[in-house]
């Protein structure tokens, strides 16, 4: 019989709780410790730290951040060692079940249920991959269809081979890197299909992962049909027009046993929604201010659950800032909020972060444009008044744009939203 006492939850009281031990969570936890937070704990549902990094065995990590190229596991290791040195506590195989406005967390692992109270919380849940049904790919429902990240995990973490004759839908970086990886393992990669007129991954990856291995890239194409009642037998690809509708008569069947989907990422915010944090419908992440504080006091957001970043390096740099802010909040150095303005995405801008500002001073902005531009001029307006005009060499939706801008007290008290726009000139 179980004793009555053992049915109680394990109680913890800490300064900062970080949810997720991927690159963002690690960077935020380290930074929180470095900036004065006492006890910092990181909860992660996996049995390892680093999130997606351990399966990213290619190199290129760290180049932008510290000027050294590392593999994913090496990059993760650097952070993990640093975190351990700083006394960050990790909880493995721990799932957060509930998050409350008063910074209480209910989590579970093999030791039991935990009730964790924190002075501040950092959300670093990352993102998940889009599936076949996010884009409604028609056809039969055989085995052999994987998202690219899941396939990469099976190959690199478990040494399991997902297929022999493979087609990849989507030319994002994960798709390109997995194409090359499968080639190394002896699979026949029959092509990468991209619905856009250009590859969505980095140009260097197109060269190093596809061109160097004679893997064809089908631009302006999509998957029109999936065939196979048990294991995948073939896919039918077809060309698309400007509206991304299939052009009939261009269908072509490719025999394959595996289809990998690299369709993009969706920020994971089930917990954020549960606690009542306002979500930006475009980024899919929480609405934040210049401190990356969400609309629930003392809960901060960073990494891919905030917005999907281009590279881990940029993500980590951002997450460190967030960890620092969460630490300051935890030790009581809360900033005085004066005024409140919304930041809006104007002409040519898909989204801009932070979505609101409540303190004057230098603000670091992130944005993405809607269309590729060969020449671009970025502007910031407060009402009709142009506050900033900045020429950019070019602009591309795949490349996040960052800039700093000093928000004055006057602007903040004007009650007029800050509008960011981008134009050809």
């Amino acid at each position: 019989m179980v004793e009555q006492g053992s049915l109680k939850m394990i109680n913890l009281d800490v300064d900062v709780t970080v949810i997720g031990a991927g690159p963002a969570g690690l960077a935020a936890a380290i930074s929180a410790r470095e900036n004065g937070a006492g006890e910092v704990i990181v909860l992660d549902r996996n049995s390892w730290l680093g999130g997606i990094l351990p399966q990213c065995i290619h190199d290129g990590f760290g180049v932008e951040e510290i000027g050294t190229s590392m593999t994913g596991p090496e990059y993760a290791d650097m952070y993990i060692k640093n975190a351990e040195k700083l006394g960050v506590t990790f909880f493995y195989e721990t799932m957060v079940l509930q998050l409350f406005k008063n910074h209480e967390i209910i989590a579970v692992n093999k030791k039991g249920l935990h009730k964790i109270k924190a002075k501040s919380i950092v959300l670093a849940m990352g993102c998940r991959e889009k599936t076949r049904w996010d884009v409604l790919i028609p056809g039969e429902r055989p085995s052999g269809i994987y998202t690219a990240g899941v396939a990469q995990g099976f190959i690199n973490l478990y040494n399991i081979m997902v297929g022999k004759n493979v087609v990849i839908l989507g030319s994002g970086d994960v798709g390109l890197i997995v194409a090359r990886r499968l080639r190394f393992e002896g699979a026949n990669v029959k092509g990468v299909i991209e619905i856009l007129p250009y590859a969505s991954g980095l140009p260097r990856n197109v060269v190093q992962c596809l061109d160097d291995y004679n893997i064809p890239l089908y631009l302006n194409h999509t998957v029109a049909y999936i065939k196979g009642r048990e294991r995948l037998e073939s896919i039918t690809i077809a060309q698309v027009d400007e509206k991304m509708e299939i052009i009939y008569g261009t269908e072509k069947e490719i025999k394959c046993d595996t289809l990998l989907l690299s369709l993009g990422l969706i920020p994971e915010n089930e917990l954020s929604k549960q606690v009542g944090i306002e979500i930006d419908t475009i980024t899919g992440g929480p609405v934040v201010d210049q401190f990356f504080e969400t609309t629930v006091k003392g809960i901060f957001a960073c990494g891919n659950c905030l917005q999907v970043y281009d590279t881990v390096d940029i993500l980590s740099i951002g997450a460190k800032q967030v960890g620092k802010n969460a630490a300051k909040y935890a030790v009581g150095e809360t900033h005085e909020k004066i005024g409140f303005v919304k930041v809006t995405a104007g002409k040519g801008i898909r989204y801009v972060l932070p979505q609101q500002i409540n303190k004057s001073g230098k603000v670091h902005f992130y944005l993405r444009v809607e269309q590729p531009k060969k020449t671009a001029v970025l502007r910031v307006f407060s009402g009709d008044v142009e506050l900033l005009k900045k020429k950019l060499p070019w602009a591309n939706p795949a490349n996040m744009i960052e800039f700093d801008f000093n928000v004055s007290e006057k602007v903040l008290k004007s009650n007029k939203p800050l509008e960011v726009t981008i134009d050809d000139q």
Partner: protein
Amino acid sequence: MQNFHVAIVGAGVIGSSIAWELSKYKLDVIVFEKGSDVSSGTSKANSGVIHSGINSPPSSLKARFCMEGNKMLQSLADSFGFSLKWTGKLVIAKNEDEVKELNRLKKVGNYNKVPGLEIKDGKEIKIQEPNVTCYKALWVPTAGIISPYEFTIAFAENAAVNNVNFLLETEVKDIQKNENNFLIETNNGKYQSKLLINAAGLNCRDIVSMLQTPDFEIYPCRGEYIVLDKTYSYLVNSMIYPVPPKEFGVLGVHITPTVEGNILLGPSAEFVDDSDDKRTTKKMMKNLLRKGKEIIPILPDKAVINAYSGVRCKLASPDEGGWADYRIEESKQTPNLINLLGIESPGLTAAPAIAKEVVKMISNSIDLKKKTVFKILKANKQRFSEMSSKKRSGLIKQDKRWGRVVCRCEHVTEAEVINALKNPLKAQTLSSVKYRCRAGMGRCQGGFCTQHIVRIMEEDLKIDVKEIKLKSPKSNLFYGRTRKLEND
């Protein structure tokens, strides 16, 4: 050769419910199922509706078994422990013209003795279903929802623990009849049985053909569905149906909440040549969303997390209107062959009543004696996601695998996955796990949990990765370990 009293072909809801009814008696019963699990055909791919009886013509077998089955469902749910919700259903009319159809349905319902039918005003409906706009609607309180696979699995697993033999991945290849017995040849050995029950669903004609010339045709009619994320469960409280379309003997695209909190849109109705053609099409997926929006304008596009189709087993062609009654009968030409033909909607509701009828038919040729010991296996409904904190803590204390969540969308623990894999049918595909404990059913569609389930299958059940299947005998997931590939 092994000898049985009764052999059942097909472990859909009909075969499984008959197996369960028969497991109460001192009989040797065997079930052949060509899929890797029970409920792998039409029985899993439908709306999961407990029908009330308003749609079946009076005096038909469909009406009779639907009404009888409907009354049996609650006590079955209580004893087996599967989920059931009496959500009720609304058939909505957009204008005065369609109200005539509501009156007709109400009349049919009254004749079939369906209780509580009421035609309500659009304003009243707005209170009940704030997101639905209509002119008038027929309220049917005795309609409900179950999970069709959970229901079928409950019958089959209960039959199995009471010594019915289930042979999965076993396809009947040929049947001969001698003086007293059927000789059944499968890919998994030869068997002999006194009685043969043809519950092969869409393949029922193939089974009959092995013994005699069939006097009927099967007209497969595909229905596509899309599944919406649980986030949108607030959109409806009950099932919302349009007035039935005039053709094909179907009920039209409707909105059905599921017992798990998802919403289904569907099914379409399209006659197909091949009964295994379970594709989903872009055209129909878009059409389903459009029709859903006609009923609930605020239905979002981004809500879709899955799509599937099921195939109805129809005995009437589209030219004949698509409607025919069930045929539940012993063959005149081949005595002791009991055929269950054309069991389409409301087959799920009717199944337990049909099973009782079949037992009655069997009692004509076999003297049935009740078993003295009869087990009830409560469906493994110990779900971490639905437990109190105290219950959770207690279970983790007993077995720490209750504390390891492996499916992040549905909060399914390692212990639940292991329980699912240790089912009495020995069904061990990824889908078998999914249908028993919901791991992989959420919005990420297995993105996170597949690796864990594979690990558990390897570690706890010692299954080689090459043997791990998605859902059917040849639906392997992997080609082995990376370093061994060239030796394949």
